[in-house]
């Protein structure tokens, strides 16, 4: 069992993760701002960011807290938003499941959209990586973003709106994720899965927080797997 983490893969992951800083930092500043404006203390905003460390669900929770809904429904909605990460966990298992428990526990803490997308984009390319290289790449991909995410929330919470100014980079987020996923579309099965994902998510947008995406993703996985089974890879 490999117990050391590949340093060179960590460094490669670090470089691949850099573009995501440009989106992650403003996003975290914004969370700090709206969390304190909603009435949370700086410590509570930091609690969300460090303990939960999942942007979309943090925004969902704060939004629902502003609307003063019952505690259990804040929890249900926020956790539903994060359920897609169970799919990430399952999808990562064939790659890093053989790593020691402590490494898997560490990877689980930072298993979010950016780390998953950046790493899978690399795992599916040649040359193939060893398990310790895959773990190193995964950890490296968000090694800078994670502390900056904490720091951004702190500055946003302490300094408020004055900090953000007119700096708006929200447009870059879909572009970064699309740039990662586009090279992964290698076969008709991948293309069909991607199209199913988009169409079904839009068609199911009436479903509450994140659950439409889950159903759409399951459908898309079935479409991809079924086409692969019939046609061969």
């Amino acid at each position, binding site marked *: 069992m490999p117990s050391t983490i590949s340093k060179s893969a960590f460094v490669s992951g670090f470089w691949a993760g850099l573009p995501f800083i440009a989106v992650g930092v403003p996003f975290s500043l914004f969370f700090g701002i709206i969390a304190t404006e909603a009435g949370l203390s700086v410590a509570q905003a930091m609690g969300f960011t460090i303990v939960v460390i999942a942007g979309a669900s943090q925004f969902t929770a704060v939004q629902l807290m502003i609307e003063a809904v019952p505690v259990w429904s804040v929890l249900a909605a926020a956790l539903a938003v994060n359920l897609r*990460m169970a799919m990430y966990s399952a999808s990562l298992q064939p790659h890093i499941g053989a790593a020691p428990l402590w490494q898997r526990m560490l990877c689980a803490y930072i298993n979010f959209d950016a780390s998953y997308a950046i790493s899978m984009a690399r795992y599916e390319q040649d040359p193939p990586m060893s398990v310790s290289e895959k773990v190193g790449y995964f950890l490296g991909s968000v090694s800078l973003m994670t502390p900056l995410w904490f720091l951004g929330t702190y500055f946003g919470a302490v300094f408020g709106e004055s900090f953000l100014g007119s700096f708006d980079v929200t*447009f870059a987020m879909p572009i970064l994720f699309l740039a990662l996923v586009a090279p992964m579309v290698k076969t008709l099965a991948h293309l069909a899965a*991607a199209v199913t994902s988009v169409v079904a998510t839009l068609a199911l947008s009436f479903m509450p927080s994140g659950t439409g995406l889950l159903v759409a*993703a399951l459908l898309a996985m079935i479409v991809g797997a079924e086409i692969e089974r019939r046609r061969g890879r």
Partner: protein
Amino acid sequence: MSYSDGQIWLMIVIMGVGTYLIRFSFLGLIGNRKMPEWALRHLRYTPVAVLPGLVAPLVLAKDASGQMDPILILAAIATGTVGWWRKGMFPGIIAGIATFLILNALF
């Protein structure tokens, strides 16, 4: 805020623990064992099944006046096309951001 400090911290802790268990789930429980072929076949499509659905609503989002942003949609198409054609992340990012900035400067 209509919640007590205790309730807020309770929500933070439950959300944190719940989210961690979601993230750890398969990595922790299955560990080194091999999943059956049918499961692996489905899991191979996870990135292309989740990420496009994650970003589609962001690309097609309507602004306060109920309008979609055609420049953002074109930038997304440029990203997808160039990223797929050049088989890499950076060509896609450059194509998408350049399209967005240039068209916004022109119109």
